[in-house]
């Protein structure tokens, strides 16, 4: 097996005294989609936020353990470096309301103070929007505010914004839970395209979605990683009874 892109080793996360993520070890290899599922409150979102080092921004939140990107522990880096390499898309689309569509896509550069010439700028915007399957819809209205788009379009704009930074890993936190079925389908399709260049981790509470889109699936329960395997194996022959209970709908 090829070397993993992202590895978490003995990762623990806390909110004050609440132990939200318990000793999670996981290895993720390149150009894969990993789906993380589990009942709400199982720590899957917290785990994702640890990878992007957003967890520590919550007052009272702490974490320990290691997350290796290739061989380097992201907890040894300045968070800004880690986040540049690991993009994130949130549950609710959150385009910057003060910027237009064009500027939203290159917000990562613009707001970081990275100067780009006009050609590069336009190339990045077109590229990212094309990859996010949004280019055709918005190419004539790039100077409208991002908040004028529909929910699904806004979410794709956020994906474009994240991939414009050319991250190595893209994290998505229930990216379709606030969207309608049509938008959901188009985003799922998009993820399939994106995994050619990226490693993707999707948190979802929707089992069908996990089964549809992912190569590997991890099941979290009460903060612990219960089972982690190929998606097919998880859904056809889960080893742990809790996983079995979950996918057969015995609790949610």
């Amino acid at each position, binding site marked *: 097996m090829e070397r993993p892109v992202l590895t978490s080793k003995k990762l623990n996360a806390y909110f004050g005294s609440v132990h939200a993520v318990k000793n999670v070890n996981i290895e993720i290899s390149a150009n894969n989609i990993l789906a993380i599922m589990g009942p709400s409150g199982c720590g899957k979102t917290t785990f994702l936020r640890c990878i*992007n080092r*957003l967890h520590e*921004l919550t*007052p009272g939140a702490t974490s320990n353990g290691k997350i290796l990107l290739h061989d380097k522990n992201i907890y040894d880096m300045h*968070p*800004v*470096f*880690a*986040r*540049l*390499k690991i*993009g*994130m*898309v*949130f549950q*609710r689309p*959150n*385009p*910057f*309301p*003060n910027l237009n569509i064009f500027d939203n896509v290159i*917000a*990562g550069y*613009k*707001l*970081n*103070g990275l100067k780009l010439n006009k050609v590069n700028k336009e190339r990045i915007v077109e590229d990212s929007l094309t990859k996010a399957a949004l280019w055709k819809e918005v190419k004539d209205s790039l100077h409208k505010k991002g*908040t004028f788009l529909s929910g699904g379009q806004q979410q794709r704009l*956020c994906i474009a*914004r*994240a991939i414009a*930074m050319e991250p190595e890993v893209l994290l998505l936190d229930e990216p379709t839970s606030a969207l309608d079925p049509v938008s959901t389908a188009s985003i799922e399709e998009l993820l399939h395209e994106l995994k050619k260049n990226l490693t993707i981790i999707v948190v979802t509470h929707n089992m069908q979605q996990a089964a549809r889109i992912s190569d590997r699936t991890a099941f979290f329960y009460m903060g612990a990683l219960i089972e982690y395997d190929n998606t097919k194996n998880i859904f056809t022959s889960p080893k742990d009874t809790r996983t079995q209970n979950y996918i057969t709908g015995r609790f949610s």
Partner: protein
Amino acid sequence: MDVRLKYRVVKSKLVQVLIIMLAFTITLPLLLIIIYIFKEGITEINWAFLTQIPKPVGEAGGGIANALAGSLIIVFTASVISVPIGIMGGIYFSENKNCWLSNWGQISVDVLQGVPSIVVGIVIYFWIVKPLGGFSAFSGSIALAIMMLPIIIRSTEETLKLIPSSLKEAGFALGIPYHRVILKIILPCGLSGILSGVLLSIARIAGETAPLLFTAFGNPYFSTDISKPMQSLPLLVFNYATSPYEDWHKLAWGAALILLFTVLLLNIITKLTTKKWNVQF
């Protein structure tokens, strides 16, 4: 039974009428003041009034150019000092909750908001006027800056509280450092609220007299040196209004009209800003 119901309904109506009458009585003094000042002041205002300095007692004419320039300089200097500190303080309090500094800071802002302006004048007299050896426009600006501070801090804080934290996270997730997330995302989104707070604080201090009594002190001549005493509109209104001379009263009416007009205008602009620059989330 029916009579009793009728009585109750009539009583309810009467109370309503009473409340409406009492409530709208408040418009009366405002109208009276505005009309009176307009009537007395408008005849004074002409080009000479705006460009000349006051004449000594007994001579007709003269203007308030020194007070206009002085007010502008003092208020501008106060804003330059107070706006950055106020906005940064507001950011700090909205970003950090329940830490030592935030808790005491909140109480301090509450206290500062209620400090009588004359007390600020006393303190600045000892902090700045005495060490520097004399009254100065600069010390007046500091006193006014202290009066502005709590207003700016509160409005910044209240505005930033309303900005969804998802925007901040979106910025962090793109690898944008903290100061740029705040300065380039959060502040632009809250611009209208912060701006209206700043304008409101300027409107508030533009008419302040008490803190200037022992600091900027006033000056019958034209001066733009902030290390020297300087005239300001409210000071001029106070000094000339309380003088026994009819000519000076006239000057004071003109100055009062300009002061009133400026302050009311600033308030109206504040309202328009809030509406116009609002960012939709």
